[in-house]
Each structure stands twice: as structure tokens, then as C-alpha cells.
């Protein structure tokens, strides 16, 4: 970590017209969020006894965890496999993971009917070790802590040598400075442990997130219901991690008017076809093995969703990224990464929501406006926080040049 080249904070304009729009969405989401906590789940959502889990669990939690996978995948490649050329991608991916997992926790809390009792998960005498959700909850909580620890060196780097506490607190500047230096030094010694821990915890809960729906049994359509779900969730997290890094890096470059790191991103993109290939072949073998392959042709909504997920989200980006020309083109790279993300998002939606049919006929679940509002608001808040941190902390390599 300490060997990283310095990326220093800069201050281009925070607000652009686009950012104002995002802020508006965030504000609207905040209003929906307030309504949820004041009026309750029933008043604000279209959840029912037939569909106890809805948009928030499928998008804010399941997709949130998957799309934050860039954090542990880049940490693994850059810090454990020591591919130094990928170092510039580590900090942006880490920031995404920190923000992403924070909002996963917020998303879970928003969905909990008795959110004020959330801390029960931390009480050993409440633990129920057979529960897959227990494992997910403990892992995500621990991983979130690890992520914040992994982020601390960036905070140290930002403030060491320029601690300016306001007013009378200025007297403490020197102490704060010393604390930061001490923290930075000791973190540097143990950071490898936290990086490895982060990868282990990610593998654990990314897979367990898939195990979650195995207990739903025949309520989940046979195209997705398989004891291999944990394996597929883990493999697809490996795929979507690099894809998310490419996607964000290209968007950030555009937003901050930087030259995209095409060379590095193209090299990272080389990994994706291999990972997608393993994932795709695994899925096909599993379908054949379970005798569920014919459901692909049943002409139902489920089969269409599966075709979209697999065709557009696995095969198309795989074919695209095999071509070196596509990997060199910013536009095609963005397209391929978007397709991988689309495929994984649709997969999580299918597993947690669209492929789910309650055994008792229930009115179909269509998320309410407020549910969409909260989800959109959370995404907007994440964008705003990302932008703020990227502009004020040494996260994105290229911002240094812009400033000077």
C-alpha cells in the first residue's frame, strides 16, 4: 500500500448541471425514505405476504453486493498477485466498495420491519448458525469494517502534513498529525492481513448470497433454482468486479475530463472472457445435469428473462471481449462492461424477484413509486458521495494532472 504512487486531492467544480440532477434524485429518494420510516413498509411499498422481498432486497442489497465486487477483485489482482500495473484501479474500486457496502447496509436496514432491532445480529445468544442469512449478515458487517480499515491509509495520506483543525481546536493539530502518522505506519505493516481477510470475506458472502434463495425451493423457477447457486453467485461476482471497475473508470474519466486508462483497462478486460466462460459453461452443465435445460424453450417470461441474462449478459460480452480490437476501443469496452453488469443485475433480479412465484396465488408484485424512489435515491447518493470523495481525497490517479 505504501508503495502506491501519490494521488493528491484536487478541487475542480463539484456541481455541474448533471450533478444537480443527481442531487434532485437523491433528495426525492430521501423524501421516500423518510416516508418509509414514518409510515411503515405497508404504506410505502407494494410488498405482500406473497412477495415478502421486493425491489430493495433485489437491487439495493443483492445487486449492491455484486456490483461492489470490484473492491476485492482488484485488491486480489494488484496486491496479492502483485500485478503492479493495476494499482491505479485499486483505490477507485475500493472507494466504490466502501460506498457500495455502506449503502447495502442502509438498504437492508430500510427493508427491515424492526430496523431498531438490527443489532440483535451482533448478540451471540441470538445467533442461529443454520441460517444462511446469519452468515451473510456477519460477513457483510465484518467486511464493511475491513473496507473502512483499507480506506484509512487514503485518509491518512490526505491529511498528513496538512491537518488544519478549525478555531481553538488548532492547538490539537500537532497531536492529530502524530496520531495520523502513527496510524499510517502501523496500518502499513498489517494491511496485507486486512486485504487477504477482505478477499476471504467477499468469497464467503458473495457465495452465501446465492445460497439464500436455495431454501425457497420450488418457489424459485427451475432455470435458477439449483444447489449450485452459491458457486454461480461467486463466479458472477468475479466477472462483474472487473467489469464494474472498467465501467466506472470510463465514466469517471468522462465526468472528470481525464484521458481514460485504456491500456490498463484493456488488459483487465482480458480476464473477463475467461471468467465469463467458466461461469457460462458451469451454468449450462448445471442446467443439463438437473434436466432443466428445456425450460429455456418453454416460451414463458422466465425463459425470456433467462435468455436475456445469458445471451446479452454472458455470451455477448464474452464474444466482444475476445477481440483485441474491442478491448482497445473505449466505446466497445464500455459496451462490453455494461453488458456484463446488465447480465449480473438481471441475474440477481431473476433469482430474488422475477423468478419467484409464491405457492399461493397472490397479486403480482410491482414495486411502488416510493420503492423505485428509494432505490434511485440511494444510487444518486452513492454517486454524489463518490464524486465528493474522488475530488477531495487521493483516489483517482489522473486528477493530479488536471489540477496542475
Amino acid at each position, binding site marked *: 500500500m505504501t508503495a502506491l504512487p501519490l494521488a493528491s486531492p484536487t478541487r475542480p467544480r463539484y456541481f455541474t448541471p448533471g450533478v444537480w440532477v443527481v442531487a434532485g434524485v437523491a433528495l426525492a429518494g430521501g423524501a421516500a425514505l423518510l416516508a418509509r420510516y414514518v409510515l411503515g413498509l405497508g404504506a410505502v411499498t407494494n410488498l405482500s405476504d*406473497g412477495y415478502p422481498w421486493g425491489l430493495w432486497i433485489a437491487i439495493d442489497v443483492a445487486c449492491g453486493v455484486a456490483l461492489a465486487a470490484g473492491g476485492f477483485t482488484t485488491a486480489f489482482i494488484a496486491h496479492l498477485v502483485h500485478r503492479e500495473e493495476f494499482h491505479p484501479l485499486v483505490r477507485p474500486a475500493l472507494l466504490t466498495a466502501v460506498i457500495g457496502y455502506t449503502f447495502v447496509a442502509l438498504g437492508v436496514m430500510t427493508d427491515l420491519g424492526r430496523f431498531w432491532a438490527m443489532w440483535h*445480529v451482533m448478540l451471540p445468544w441470538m445467533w442461529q448458525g443454520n441460517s444462511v442469512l446469519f452468515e451473510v449478515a456477519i460477513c457483510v458487517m465484518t467486511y464493511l469494517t475491513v473496507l473502512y480499515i483499507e480506506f484509512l491509509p487514503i485518509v491518512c495520506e490526505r491529511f498528513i502534513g496538512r491537518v488544519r483543525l478549525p478555531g481553538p481546536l488548532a492547538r490539537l493539530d500537532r497531536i492529530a498529525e502524530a496520531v495520523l502518522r502513527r496510524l499510517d505506519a502501523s496500518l502499513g505493516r498489517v494491511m496485507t492481513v486486512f486485504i487477504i481477510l477482505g478477499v476471504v470475506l467477499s468469497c464467503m458472502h458473495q457465495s452465501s448470497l446465492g445460497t439464500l434463495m436455495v431454501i425457497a*425451493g420450488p418457489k424459485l423457477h427451475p432455470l435458477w433454482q439449483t444447489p449450485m447457486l452459491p458457486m454461480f453467485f461467486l463466479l458472477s461476482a468475479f466477472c462483474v468486479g472487473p467489469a464494474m471497475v472498467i465501467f466506472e473508470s470510463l465514466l469517471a474519466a468522462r465526468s472528470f475530463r481525464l484521458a481514460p486508462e485504456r491500456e490498463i483497462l484493456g488488459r483487465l478486460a482480458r480476464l473477463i472472457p475467461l471468467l465469463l466462460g467458466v461461469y457460462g459453461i458451469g451454468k449450462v452443465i448445471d442446467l443439463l445435469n438437473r434436466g432443466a435445460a428445456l425450460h429455456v424453450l418453454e416460451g414463458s417470461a422466465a425463459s425470456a428473462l433467462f435468455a436475456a441474462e445469458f445471451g446479452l449478459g454472458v455470451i455477448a460480452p464474452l464474444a466482444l471481449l475476445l477481440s483485441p480490437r474491442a478491448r482497445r476501443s473505449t466505446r466497445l469496452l464500455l459496451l462490453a462492461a455494461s453488458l456484463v453488469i446488465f447480465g449480473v443485475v438481471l441475474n440477481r433480479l431473476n433469482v430474488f424477484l422475477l423468478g419467484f412465484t*409464491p*405457492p*399461493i396465488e397472490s397479486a403480482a408484485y410491482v414495486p411502488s413509486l416510493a420503492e423505485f424512489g428509494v432505490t434511485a435515491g440511494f444510487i444518486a447518493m452513492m454517486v454524489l458521495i463518490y464524486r465528493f470523495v474522488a475530488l477531495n481525497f487521493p483516489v483517482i490517479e489522473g486528477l493530479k494532472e488536471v489540477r496542475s
Partner: protein
Amino acid sequence: MSIPLPQLLPSCGSARPATPAARTERTRPRAHRTGAVSRRDFVRLTGACAATLAATSVAPAGGEAGGLDADRRGVLVDLTVCIGCRRCEWACRNESNPPAGELRECDDQSVFRSRRRPTSTQLTVVNRYPGPAGGPAAHVKTQCMHCEHPACASACLVGAMRKTPTGPVIYDAARCIGCRYCMVACPFQYASYEFDNALTPQVRKCQLCPARTSRGELPACVAICPVEALTYGRRDELLRIAHERIRTCPDRYVDHVYGEHEAGGTSWLYLADRPFTELGFPTLGSSSPAELTEAIQHGIFKGFAAPVMLFGLLAAVGRLMRDPKESS
């Protein structure tokens, strides 16, 4: 128990189907004429069960696998006897969601037009299924099935759902955090949620009347049933009774006790005159959905070996792949 039973009998009595004498004798050690099971009869019934068991000694001496008592309780529902009077719905409301309202509201047959499910204020509901080709309609009471190996209890991360050794699956609101994973896990989707409660919503489902049974009374629905479609007792004894009814009257029943094996077995058991798929029962395998997830979960995390091994592997990778120039 101050339920005004005598009022019911005239209206229900005439609708009561003729039951074969053999069945009546075998299932009821002493023939009843009142049409309702009283506490006295309950004691008698359990006494008879105990006697049967003492004579045959089929039950294992101690507890069974999974920490369940050998004499755990259940309810047998004979759908061929049920007349759809919905008194059980009223009694359930009276017990779990008072005030229950007027008893005569049960006579409203219009509710049968749509298929209903248990809700957070009505933990049991009766649905009507028209008979095949003008045959008699069937009425199906639904409520939490109290699985032998409940998926909801396996799913709950804070142990708010619990299978008691005596049979019932009990919900403890003091532990619950409101994630509703139990509802996702339930193979019947019978648990329901107080979505409209903003601050202290609970998962609501049949608890098998713990307050009543601990006083030696029957569950409210069983007690009020005017035609004795419901029998409360030891699960193993109920199974014996069910199979005996099928054997004695093979024309009356399909040869299937729903709940004997479904989802790994349930405390509520059903007898019917037609395939259960025609009566809204889900077709389920003979193992609990929890068995598979627990096998996966404990397989991966047994002794925490896999995560520790992964940690070691990653540490080794980190060391071996290190560039010698960097380590200086």
C-alpha cells in the same frame, strides 16, 4: 371456553355429511353426540392414545432425532368431514386477534368466491373447491403447517422462529428483526406480516394455541369445530388414525396423508377425497428445504476450515508472487 356452541348446531347439523359408522367408531373411542370436542373428550382421546401406545409400544422410548418429543402434537384434518362453516376462522380470531366479531358473520358464503390465504389478522382461512362434475365441494382449512423441520426456523438469523419439541413452531417477536426471510423460506408461504405496522410489525402465523394447550385445552379451531373435522393429538397417533381411515374406507379417501412426508413432514395432516393438487396444496418433496441449505452451509463452513484454507492460500499467493524488488 365460552363459545356459544348450541347456536351453531341447527345450521351445521343438517349440512353434516353422513360418515361411515366404522370410521366414527375407530377414530372416537366413545361416540360423541354433541358435535364438538370438549376438554373432557380431549383428555379421553389422549388417554386412548396413551393406551394404544402402551399396548403396541411403537414409539421410541426417548426423544426423536432433531430434539423432538416422541409424543409431539399435531392436528389431523379430515376434509371429507369439513362443511365449510368457518367457525374455526372465528375461534382463531377470538384467540389470536380479538375482538372476533359476530359469530354469524361466518355464515357469509360470499368469501368462497375467491381463494384466500392466511393473513396477519386471520391466521387460518377456509377455502372452497368445487367438486368434480357437480360432486360435493371440498373445504380446505389452511394455516401454518408446523413443519417437523421448519424452513422458517432454519432461515431465521436470530432464532425468532423455533420448533418446540412438543410440535408447534413458535414465533418470538422479542428476537425478530423483521427481515421476512422466514416467509421467503416457508414452502407453503403461510406466514404473514404486519406490513401496516410502522414500528413493531410481527410475523403472524398459527402458534397452535400455546396458552390453551398448556391449560389442557384444545386449540381454539379444534375445540369449536362442530363436525369434528379436526382431531388434535399425538402426531404418530394421528398418522395411525389417518391410515386406518383410508384402509377402512378406501372409496372415501385418496391414499395420501398430506403432511406425512411433505417438506419433511408437518404437524398438520390432511385427509381428502381427491388429489391434493386439486385442493390448492403445493406439491412438495419429502425432505425439508432446510436440509439442503443446511448441508451446503455446514459443508462450506464446517470447522471454518474452508475460509481458513482460503486465507492461507491467498497469503501464500501474496508471498510467492511478490516482486523481489518491491519487498525491499
